[in-house]
Structures are given as structure tokens and as C-alpha cells.
């Protein structure tokens, strides 16, 4: 066997450029294949189950997906507002474990400002407790303070003690600046959820921002300094809900979505996102097919690379045969060469995978706050390399048969 390895090693070295180019092509295919599957799986898991611990989002009448994207992922626009009394009715329902109001509509340098209650931080809203970086605290609901998500802090440089102005709308425009500054009192530790991409402020300060008009009672109301805001004027953009049991969710679904006309209940959040993923499943399928096609093309490259070298190697094989090498030895050499090229490609594939996933992770984190782990195990790490090496070996069969059938006596004579 050591002889076979010697011959294979020498041959690959003699055709180094071809070996490298083919290995890189195989590596790209393998890396992309693994990346497509890993990104798909992790994104699906993160966006259907990992982003929040709440069961449902209640919002203005509209699309449940829009509600979830807006309230959970801080994407898309809010479909509208709900009156405070609706929030209170749900909050006071003994079948509801937790109801937390969100008011949205402002941003700071493109990052959403979400006004809420301090309850959010004491509840495991993102599957675990919110934790603060050292030196910080959660906001006082009666002051114009802010707690900043880790990603926002990274990107904007906000730190404890920083002050900033809110800007109206979800797109950052200088002219939309609200007077009145927020003071940063805490920076959240990374949660690897969309919460990292938000700035959290008290509801009261949101209502009192200059330019905000409350229409909860059907008439316009502008909050006055030093005066409490009557509940009937207050509005919320969404209510994050945790039911005590799934049956309650069904009841609410029946009551709000089928019988009611004012609000929409996006429930369960996982299903809303799963439906969304199913709708865009074709995109994943295209990527998968593309990766498979690249793998097949890479195998073709192995075939072409080895096949093209066969003419110049006929004499080498004839000499080996004259030295006593069996036809099967020659066949094995070619198959092994194809295997080694494919195996090299697999190693390169892991590098490609790491690069692709690091880039994808950064893009996804910047866009949604969801973090995908580059080094998290996925079965594709097993079946893709095995599949690629198998395909590579298959690609070696045609040139191997050609070498196998090559006559000895004719090819011992130097070819001019």
C-alpha cells in the first residue's frame, strides 16, 4: 500500500497546479454545501424558536407575520396601535402568565427604540434573564433613560452615561430628530437574539417625547410635563404575551382573529415564522440544488484533470506494469488520486465553510440580531465530506478504466 501512496503522492505533485485548482473547486463545492445546510438549519431554529420566549404577539389588525417581524425581530413596520385598555384587559386575565407592552416608531441611527416596562427585564423574555454589562442598571420607568442592546452599543459606541436623541420613524433621518435626550444607564450583555439590536426605553418617556400624539381615546392627546397621562389616551404598538397554557392561546385566537375586527393575534410565534420559512423554502431549495450542481461540476473537474493527464502518463503506467504492477494497482492509483484530491477539497471545504458562515453570521446578526454559530455541529459535516469523496472516487473511475486498459508493450516505447 505504501507503494500506491508513493505513486499517488508523486503524481499529484507532478501535476501540482491541476491538483490545487481541482481541490479548490471541490473545496468551494463542499464548503458551500455545508454552509447552505448549516445556515438554513440554524436560521430556522433561531427565528422560529430561539428569538423569544413569548407565545404570541397582539397588535393592530393586519398580518401576523408583520406583527412578529416588527415586535420580535425589530424589522418591518408596525401595523398600527392598540388602545391601552386592551393591553390591560389581557394583562389582568388570570390565564395570561405575562403581557408586556411595546411602543415603537422611533430609532437612533437606524436601530429601533422599543418603549416598554421594566417587567421585560425581569422576565426571561429571550429564554434567559437579561444581564447587564458591569456598571449598568435597568431604566427607571419614570425617567428618560435607555438600556442599549449589545449590538447597538458595538455599532453606535453608546455606553453608560451617553446621551442621545430619538429620531422619528424607522429610518434614520437627521431632520426627524425628537427634542429631549435619553441617558444610557445600561448595556445589555449579548443574548444572540434580536433584543441585541434594540434600544429599550420606558413607555412613559416615549409618550412624552415631543411630537408624539396619543390617540387611544379617539382624540388627539399630547402629554404634559408634570401631569400623569390618563390611561384612556395611551396606546401600544404590540403586546408580547405568554399564556398559561396552549388552550388559552387557542381561545384568544378564536376570540381575536376570528370574531374580533380590531386586533390580530400572531400565535404561536413559532408557527408564524415556520409558515414564513415554508413560503421561502424554494429559495433554500435553489441554493441546495446549486450546491449539489457545484459538487457535480467539481467532480467533473477531477475527472477532467486526471483524464487529461492520462496521455502523458501512459508510459509511466507501462513502466510500472513492466516492473510487475498489476492492472488493479494502476486502477487503484487513479482512484486514490481522485480520492485524495476530493479529500483535499473537503479540508479546503471546511475553511470555505468557516469563511462563508462567519460572513453569513455577521450579516444575519446585523440584519436580525440572530446569531448563528460557526462551529455548531450539523450532520452535513459528516455526509457532505463522505459524499464529496465518494463522488470524487466515482469521477476517477473513467480515467482509471482507461489506465487499466492501457497496453504495456506499446507504451513502453518513448512517444515523440
Amino acid at each position, binding site marked *: 500500500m*505504501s*507503494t500506491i501512496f*508513493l*505513486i499517488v503522492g*508523486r*503524481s499529484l*505533485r*507532478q501535476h501540482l497546479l491541476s491538483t490545487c485548482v481541482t481541490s479548490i473547486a471541490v473545496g468551494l463545492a463542499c464548503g458551500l454545501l455545508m454552509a447552505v445546510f448549516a445556515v438554513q438549519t440554524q436560521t430556522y431554529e433561531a427565528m422560529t424558536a430561539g428569538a423569544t420566549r413569548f407565545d404570541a404577539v397582539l397588535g393592530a389588525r393586519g398580518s401576523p407575520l408583520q406583527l412578529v417581524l416588527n415586535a420580535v425581530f425589530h424589522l418591518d413596520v408596525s401595523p398600527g396601535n392598540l388602545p391601552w385598555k386592551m393591553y390591560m384587559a389581557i394583562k389582568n386575565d388570570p390565564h395570561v402568565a405575562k403581557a408586556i407592552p411595546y411602543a415603537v416608531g422611533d430609532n437612533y441611527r437606524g436601530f429601533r427604540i422599543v418603549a416598554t416596562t421594566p417587567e421585560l427585564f425581569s422576565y426571561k423574555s429571550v429564554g434567559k434573564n437579561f444581564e447587564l454589562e458591569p456598571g449598568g442598571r435597568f431604566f427607571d420607568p419614570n425617567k428618560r433613560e435607555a438600556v442599549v442592546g449589545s449590538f447597538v452599543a458595538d455599532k453606535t459606541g453608546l455606553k453608560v452615561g451617553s446621551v442621545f436623541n430619538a429620531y422619528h420613524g424607522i429610518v434614520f433621518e437627521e431632520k426627524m430628530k425628537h427634542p429631549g435626550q435619553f441617558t444610557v444607564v445600561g448595556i445589555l450583555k449579548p443574548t444572540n437574539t434580536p433584543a441585541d439590536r434594540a434600544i429599550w426605553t420606558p413607555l412613559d418617556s416615549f409618550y412624552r417625547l415631543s411630537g408624539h400624539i396619543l390617540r387611544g381615546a379617539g382624540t388627539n392627546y399630547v402629554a404634559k410635563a408634570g401631569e400623569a397621562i390618563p390611561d384612556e389616551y395611551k396606546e401600544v404598538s404590540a403586546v408580547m404575551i405568554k399564556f398559561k397554557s396552549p388552550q388559552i392561546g387557542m381561545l384568544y385566537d378564536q376570540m381575536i382573529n376570528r370574531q374580533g375586527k380590531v386586533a390580530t393575534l400572531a400565535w404561536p410565534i413559532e408557527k408564524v415564522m415556520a409558515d414564513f420559512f415554508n413560503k421561502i423554502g424554494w429559495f433554500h431549495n435553489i441554493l441546495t440544488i446549486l450546491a449539489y450542481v457545484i459538487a457535480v461540476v467539481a467532480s467533473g473537474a477531477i475527472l477532467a484533470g486526471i483524464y487529461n493527464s492520462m496521455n502523458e502518463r501512459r*508510459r*509511466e503506467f507501462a*513502466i*510500472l*506494469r*513492466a*516492473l*510487475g*504492477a*498489476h*492492472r*488493479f*494497482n494502476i486502477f487503484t492509483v487513479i482512484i486514490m488520486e481522485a480520492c485524495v484530491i476530493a479529500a483535499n477539497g473537503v479540508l479546503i471545504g471546511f475553511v470555505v465553510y468557516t469563511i462563508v458562515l462567519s460572513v453569513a453570521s455577521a450579516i444575519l446578526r446585523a440584519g436580525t440580531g440572530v446569531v448563528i454559530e460557526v462551529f455548531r455541529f450539523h450532520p452535513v459535516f459528516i455526509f457532505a465530506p463522505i459524499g464529496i469523496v465518494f463522488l470524487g472516487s466515482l469521477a476517477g473511475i473513467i480515467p482509471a478504466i482507461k489506465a487499466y486498459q492501457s*497496453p*504495456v*508493450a*506499446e507504451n*513502453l*516505447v*518513448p512517444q515523440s
Partner: protein
Amino acid sequence: METILEIKGLRKSFVNYEGQKIPTVDIQQFNLYKKEQVAIEGLSGSGKTTFLNLVAGILRPDEGQIFFEKEDVAILSESRRDLWRAQNIGYVFQTFNLLQGYSALENVILGMAFGKGIHKDFALALLKRVNLAKHIHSKPRQMSIGQQQRVAVARALANKPKLVLADEPTGNLDRTHARETISLIQEVCAENGAALLLVSHDHGVLGKLKRVIKMSDVNRAGLPVEAERENNPVKAGA
């Protein structure tokens, strides 16, 4: 003396471009004894190389028997012939046929790899014997023609063969190197107890061997047709 090689009624033909069967080798009887060194003299195209390829089992005869130590190797399957060749035959080619991507040592090692196994020390000893101790890691292209032929001689003896076949081993060498090489082949064959069957048309070489046979005396196949075959190569079935 004990016979190592006995050939009976050996025939080999090739088919030319016109589909005609052209006899190339037709030898009724040929014997070679153990440790004997025999030269076959013949002109270019007289079927010498085909004869050696038949003896080496590289070509399968159309008819006849090739007894090697009483075993008819002509009827062996191809895989058995490969193994038999790897274990019993050393072959020195006119064009050396060294593997270009491999060092001198690796070339010699490949000469033993398919037969009795790799013995690096023996390979090194052989290279030392042919005065190439300083060139074991040199590639063929880094060596002179004479050095390359010495590597080929060392490789032919690497599997401790019982029979060494040499096909015009000095054909590419000048007279001085030719004499040295033929002496070397004779010496190392004698030292290793191998019989030698050498074909050449060089009288300087032929004069160094005790027994010289004319190809035309043993091969009944027509010379002119064979010469034509070499001028117009045809496919040979291995």
C-alpha cells in the same frame, strides 16, 4: 546444468493496418540455463524486443510454451503473470524507462515493490554497487545518461530476479559507457545469481558474452515483414 527458461513452439503475430497477420516471432526451441549469460544478436526489426516481452510475460504468445523453472508462464492469467514478473524478472530497457518524477532510490524501490516487497537497505546497497551512492535522491533528469542506465541496472536487480532481460541496454550510450554498462550488468547478474538474456546488435557488446545466438537462427519469422512492422507500427495485444 539446470534449465531456467525453456521455450517451445513460440509464435507471435501482429495485425497490420491492412488487417494482415504478420508473424514476428516464431521460435521452435530455446533454452537458457540458470546463471547463464546469453546474448541474442539481431538487426533492428528482427523481433528481439517482442521476444523479450514474450519472455517477460508483457505480451501473451499466440502459440507455444514458455517454461520458467518448469512452469508454463504463457498460460498464466494476466494477474499471475504480473506477479510472476514482479518476483522473477528484471528488465533493463534501451531507453532506461526510469520514472521521471522519482528519485534514483525510489526508482529502485519501485523495482522491488510489486514482487518480494520493499527492502530499502538492499536498494541502497544496489545503488552503491553501481556507484550511485551520492545520487540516491537525484531525479533522472539531474543525472547523466550513463548514470541513468546504472539506475536502470540497479532497478532490474532490485527484486532479486532469477532472470534479467536486457533490451539493447547500451543502445543510447557511447562506446566507453557501453563497455562499462555491459560489464556492470554481467557482474551484478553474476553476483546475484541471475541469468542474463541480452539482445543487441552491437558487436562490442556481443563480444563480451560467451554464448551469442543469432536471432535469425532461432526466429523463423520473416525479417523483411518485421522490419516493415516497426516502420509502420501496429497495435500489439498484451
